[in-house]
């Protein structure tokens, strides 16, 4: 089965996706291979999650991460806030992120979220654990101001122990200075 429309793949369609890929595999005809040239093309346009383009390697597998449970139900709600170096100030550009999550929480008082603060790799472990805690708490405060209940939220920190991105340059560091909202 070859789909030609680029659709955003909901998590729940994992089984269907797998079936589609397998069905796709079995239906692609192999070229006559006299010269030993490798078979190259398949009709895979738009059948990958998030719109993989044609020319993608045949071995590509797009992972679906189930480890942060229940986030699929959040749809497209952004759940990360990034910070400047040595700072725990929630910048204006994340106002809509805060608003969206505060709305979700205040609409359903039974919903619970853990706010995980992180730092980049520079500096001491314990001091960075405390910095990450400050980031998480800053996000919690911002959410509370917009109507989320403190009993719905717990702020924790991973300090520098759980980077999102490996690397020792500012590009990586910027992606690691963050607070993540993890709905339980």
């Amino acid at each position: 089965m070859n789909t030609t429309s680029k659709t955003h793949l909901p998590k729940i369609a994992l089984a269907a996706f797998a079936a589609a890929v397998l069905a796709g595999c079995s239906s692609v005809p192999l070229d006559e291979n006299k010269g030993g040239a490798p078979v190259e093309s398949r009709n895979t346009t738009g059948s990958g999650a998030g719109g993989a383009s044609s020319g993608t390697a045949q071995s590509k597998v797009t992972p679906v991460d189930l480890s942060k449970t229940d986030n699929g139900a959040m749809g497209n709600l952004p759940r990360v806030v990034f910070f400047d170096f040595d700072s725990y100030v929630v910048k204006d550009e994340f106002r809509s992120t805060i608003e969206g999550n505060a709305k979700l929480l205040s609409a359903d008082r039974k919903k619970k979220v853990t706010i995980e603060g992180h730092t980049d790799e520079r500096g001491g472990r314990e001091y960075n654990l405390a910095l990450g805690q400050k980031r998480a708490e800053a996000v919690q405060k911002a959410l509370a101001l917009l109507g989320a209940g403190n009993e719905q939220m717990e702020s924790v920190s991973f300090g520098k122990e759980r980077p999102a991105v490996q690397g020792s340059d500012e590009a990586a560091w910027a992606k690691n200075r963050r607070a993540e909202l993890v709905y339980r």
Partner: protein
Amino acid sequence: MLTRRTLIAAGLAGSSLSAFAQFRVEISGVGATQVPIAIPRFRDEDKAAQQVSAIVRADLERSGFFRPVEVNGTALDETAKPAMGEWRARSVDALAAGSVQRLADGRVDVRFKLWDVVKGSELGGQASAVDPADLRLAAHRIADYIYEKLTGDKGVFSTRIAYVTRGGGRYTLRVADADGEGGQVALNSPEPIISPAWSPDGRELAYVSFESQKAVIYAQDVMSGKRRPIANFRGSNSAPAWSPDGGTIAATLSREGGSQLFLMDRNGGNVRRLTSSSAIDTEPCFSPDGRTIYFVSDRGGGPQVYRVAAGGGGVERVTFAGSYNISPAISADGRTLAYVTRQGNSFKLQTLDLSTPGSQPTSLTDTSDDESPSFAPNGKLIIYATRAGGRDVLMTTTLDGRIKARLVSTTADVREPTWGPYGR
């Protein structure tokens, strides 16, 4: 500076304590005086799982104060009457000889004697029967005995260290001898482990585990593996530190917002707040007399080392040089503070003489990624983690920085070393 490399014998392979990470010891620097000492193979040590004399020689050499003299082919034990003239002719100042014997009940009898060759007299000796699993420990105790007899200082060769490794997506908390050998896994986890701290009696390790997706403090009995949560309050619980009498634990808790210092009983009860600032207060460290707690606070802008009476009260700043000072450790005599300072992009181990007000810090290393200093219980060595040759490694240094030993892991990254107490 002289550089020597000592390869620990592969005889470890036969031991039930064989290490997952093998350490090589590299030594740089020499002491002001080095005692030339001869320690021939102990009689029948080849039949045992550990080459006792090799461990003793390596311990003494690593201190920088001894120079083992080659004595191939010499057959001596503790019952010998060595010809002092012969040994003096070989430029040997001290001689130790011994034997290893398996007893009928399975234990191993280790005996040795120590001679002052210059004076031509016996300095003493010992005999002890140990469980075969404690043969390394018996060798380290011999090295301690020799070290103390000949330098006057208490040796730390029979103490232990704990440290964290990370590799292959897993973290382990390990316990090893002070020479880095005989490492055993105390905790194996898919999530980070940080801030291990020995209890003063050496029986437990407190540490922070992220196994439940947040920082929680545990205490674990090393011998039995039994562990108990000490602090699992709302938010993050970290930086455990034991009081010298083992009855109190100081820690950083965010249960009241921010990161503040709290005290609690060793079972985690009777929690009371120690610092009240709107800043970050963390990394508590008791003074040896238990009356003062050193800690890190950024109440002045950047992180600096402060101290406060253990019973609470006024907070006094301790570090003034530099804009970022963390990870305090105090020597056993309370006179020296070791910590890490940030200079530009470098993190460097420094010491500060606390007994001389206004003294300037001393840098101890040439490396630029130092972390987690911890004093040996005799106050004469500091163990720390650093980065060298692309790996995270453990190093020891004398307080003047002149003699360094590198414990090089051949496998995963090693970090967060903490030196255990006397009296295993």
